[in-house]
């Protein structure tokens, strides 16, 4: 996603194409995240769940305040080229990537810890 926005900014890729490729990916990402949260809930991993709750809330808010669109997704090709929105989307992408990476290693650590300790 970050790469995509970077492309949009530097490589001048067509915003319509870009939005069409990105928009179908938004909901799956959110759903996977929700799925993870539910799994944590089932496993009563309260710490992990607590770490993920803010992002979950953010996702819900973000999707509620999306522009008027008929299809799924967040990104509107007419406004995406606005410098502020593009910068915001890019920043959001970076932050989420960092969060996912960190949490991945944390889960990995947790799994190994559990395996070793059991």
């Amino acid at each position, binding site marked *: 996603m970050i790469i995509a926005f970077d492309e949009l900014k530097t490589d*001048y890729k067509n915003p319509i*194409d870009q939005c*069409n490729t990105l928009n179908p990916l938004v909901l799956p990402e959110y759903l996977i995240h929700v799925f993870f949260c539910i799994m944590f809930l089932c496993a009563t991993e309260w710490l992990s769940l607590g770490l993920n709750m803010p992002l979950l809330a953010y996702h819900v808010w973000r999707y509620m305040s999306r522009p*008027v*669109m*008929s299809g799924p997704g967040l990104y509107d*090709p007419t406004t995406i*080229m606005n*410098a502020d929105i593009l910068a915001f989307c890019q920043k959001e992408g970076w932050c989420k990537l960092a969060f996912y990476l960190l949490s991945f290693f944390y889960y990995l650590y947790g799994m190994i810890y559990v395996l070793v300790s059991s």
Partner: protein
Amino acid sequence: MSNTAAGYNSQNGEGKPPCSNGPIQNPVMTQAPGQGYNTAAVTMHPQHMPAKAPLEQPAGQYHYGCYQSAPPASMYQGPGQSAPPVSVYQGPGQSAPPVSVYQGPGQSTPPVSMYQRPGQSAPPVSVYQGPGQSAPPASVYQGPGQSVPPASVYQRPGQSAPPVSMYQGPGQSAPPVSVYQGPGQTNMTRPPSRPLQPHQGGSARIAAPAQSSTPPPVSSNSFYPGSQIPPHSHWPYGTSPPMSQPSVGSPANHVTSAPSQPSGYGIQNSPPQGPPAPLNSSVQPGQPSGYGIQNSPSQGPPAPLNSSVQPGPAPPPFNPPSSQTYQPGRQPFGPPPPLRPAAPPTGQLNNAATPLPPAAAKQEVPGAERAHIHNSFDALESGGRNAAQHPPQMGRAVGLSYPSLPPGYQNMAAPPSAPGMQPRSQPYPAGAQSFQQAPLGPAQLGSALGGMSLHQSQPPEALRAINLLQERNLLPQGPVTPPVPCLPQDLQRLNCSPEVFRCTLTNIPQTQSLLNKAKLPLGLLLHPFRDMSQLPVVTSSTIVRCRSCRTYINPFVTFLDQRRWKCNLCYRVNEVPEEFMYNPVSRSYGEPHKRPEVQNPTIEFIAPSEYMLRPPQPAVYLFVLDVSHNAVETGYLDTVCQSLLDSLSLLPGDTRTKIGFITFDSTVHFYNLQEGLSQPQMLVVSDIEDIFIPTPDSLLVNLSECKELVQDLLKGLPQMFTRTLETQCALGPALQAAFKLLSPTGGRVSVFQTQLPSVGVGALKSREDPNQRASAKDIPHLTPATDFYKKLALDCSGQQIAVDLFLLSGQYCDLASLACISKYSAGGVHYYPSYHHLHNPAQVEQLQRDLKRYISRKIGFESVMRVRCTKGLSIHTFHGNFFVRSTDLLSLPNINPDSGFAVQMSIEENLVDMQVVSFQAALLYTSSKGERRIRVHTLCLPVVNSMADIFAGADVQAITGLLASMAVDRSVTASLSDARDALVNAAIDSLRAYRSGGLSVQQPGLVAPACLRLLPLYVVALLKQKAFRTGTSTRLDERVFAMCQLKYQPLAYLMLMIHPALYRVDNLTDEGAISIADRTIPQPAILQLSVEKLSRDGSFLMDSGSVLYLWVGRNCAPNFITQVLGVPNYTAIPQTMTQLPELDTAESTRTRAFISWLREQRPFYPILHVIREESPLKASFMQHMVEDRTESALSYYEFLLHLQQQVNK
């Protein structure tokens, strides 16, 4: 979606199909299944039936097509079948009721046939009339999968087919067999009938342009003159024989098209009516390198000689052909050396030019460059991405010497009420001199630019502190003039006209932090396609551009020596091409800096073939008219049809111009205007869920060939629907049909709509609650309700279609949703609230006048605009009607002279070591004559590093315009109250910044620099605009329309809309009058917009841009009433009066001269309303009194007090 995807394709064509910026070159556009119509058919109806019925028929029965009581079932009519040869044209849904019945040939019924409206009979049956009544086998119904190779194919949507190619070779005629391929009539499915037909049609079409028109791949060679190229490379889009023929056939044509001169230069220096310049004749055929400059408004064919430059559409019809010749001394920005009046003998010219071809031939095109050239629009119009490879060198070269020149603003102590912010006299004698003596070389430039370092020994006039609370009379006597950039005289003389290109800060701050401190918005206001009375046009096979950033050469580049120039945007050093060494104006060699490109900030190039991705499209106009009951009630059809009839010949275009009509109520009606018919045929498609085009090739017809049919239709159209009872309105399907109809070519769609769309896709619901209008704190529903119109607009934009919306309605129409169709397809919105032909005659006149302008104004098709700026600056946001395709590229399917753009800028890197920055807007478009043209504007501004200088260069009108656009954005994305707060804060912040940063001595009161003294007034005016006002009852549509206007009107008209001009006109004198063309035009002073300025014994004219109000006081001098208004006394003034009588009195002449002078300054004709003190229109007059207090808004003085409180906090 792959359809649009292909159309939009990526910008930089490396490795990607070169179909980016709009026109798509490959003839088989990758059109998705479901979109295409195979229209390889040349003639759908080889033999046309004689007209079935007269157009005007007694109402109630529509005698169009035959009414046939055919059951809505599918009938398969094999070709061999001989029995009643009725082929049923079947609608898309096999079982669905809406079935269009195609009436086949051989119908034995009497020629008068009835058309029954779908609403009357239960299953909506559309009947349409078949071809050739007498020729039974003419229409062959073909089942799926079958194919008759040479047939013309009618294909249903939903089956993939290559699209229509406009540029069909004339030899393409198919045998007179029409095949209507329907979706599986027999097996009741919709089979993928891929096989033969589409393929054949497609290949035939590919062949057609290849033979007749498209430039072969070698055409890039024509980039280099003199190389051995087949002659056709100069008119590579020879698809339109009528177009290129005049040039070929013209005996004196030695310029571009004759085979023997690959690049001839011709100069047309005379206005059309002028004698052919001797220059032309001096360029002989066979000259190796040529050059065409046409510096005339070229209304008609300029001179028989100059066939190189097509009579351009440059000036619109209403521009009087100016008699200015290209005498540089006389024009404002012209080149200094006047062209020699007598052309040098040909021999000399030949001498000068003959060395060219070998040199040029030697000049090898580097492979990479060639690839770059071929890179379609990216190469054409893109900025290079490797700009970073070339570090800025200007700082080194330019900043060498700073002789201490007179301080910038020293002798600018002008009288306080001078209209200009800065006097126009330029205080740079030394710099100017040195520059004039040696126009070359960076060192001189550096010394010249040294004059810009502003020493603040004495505050300039623009910075004079004004206490706004004490000084009341802030308005200048005349119009507010933009500040003049503080540049050396030479550069300023070459700078772009502020009417075209304006910057909010004429002194650019050096860093973003400085800009943030100044709290002023940085941005550009553009009016790129403005009607110009004088525009140099250059025909050249080589358009000199920077290799890395693709900037066009402009007056602000520096020539390092004879052979090299340095780009002023990216600072790359480029070679001067051999061809450029020759100066066609002075006819001398070795003076590249005297070329017109380097002498004119605004110039137009006739683009060679590298700038096309497909042959230039013809002018295509489609009118989509609402004919539902509500629409007929308003009576607008009469006006529109009559206006079109009157102005049909004024439609810009050439012999290829096409026109078409669609009407809609709950169904969509097409009009077959095929040549050969004796009357227009109406085809009804009632299946609005899945709209399709019944006969794709006969609905858009050549205007010149089918003019009579078009006129017939326009005469008959208003009567056709007088008794209609259909109240539903299917705008969405009609727009989809228009999109499908135009997508092969692109063009302009004009939609006339009178009510909320209620059926089909894009149906809307009323969202406005009238009771909440005045009371609501925040205005909801400023955003579109559906994204259907936005999506369709994006599709249109990809296919080079622009949609102009005319909304004539008294009720709520949800303009916020509807306007999207125009906003993203670069169209325009026109709104006539409560239009009615009887009740509102002023609106009728307004519509007539607007339509006249709309139809006859200049138009550019398939255009893109790129805005480039010096490295370090970057574009933040665009405002206007367009689709942003990349960070600096706007896609504009159409461009018209009445649209403006705003660009917000930000400073990304510090502009240290730079003396000046430049902005360049390049607009690539296809003229209505089928020429590809590039209009380039370049603006150069100085860079400063102190707050005082920033404030000194602030352009208050441009700032207001940009603030308005930003506020519109804010009110859509956030809320209206946010936007209002932002406007107020903008004023507070800038004044506070001035107080803390720009002011040396603290003064009491609310202090503003002289150049910004009008900012609070303009902000108050904006807050009381229809767009932003609260508290007053404002209809949502009117509010949204005002917002649209704020975004896309050019600044000059925008300012009048924000802050109208008020004049007292009962005592006009000739004192200070100006004289234009034997008319004396009085110049009354502009008054403040306050009721205190009105007096009962006077008469006042208010000019709000689109409307003029003449307010007559109760005790107005009887002299004025009788002499100007032509009525005996005050009480005899009629309630509605929109014309001033032509009386033969001095007062009347003066008043009318003044009013017509005001009207001439703008494209659309403002209606004059004469109002008395108690007229109903008084409210709309009084709402413009922005300095006064209303129930819900502060007065100007109260606002100032509020500001003072905030600023001094």
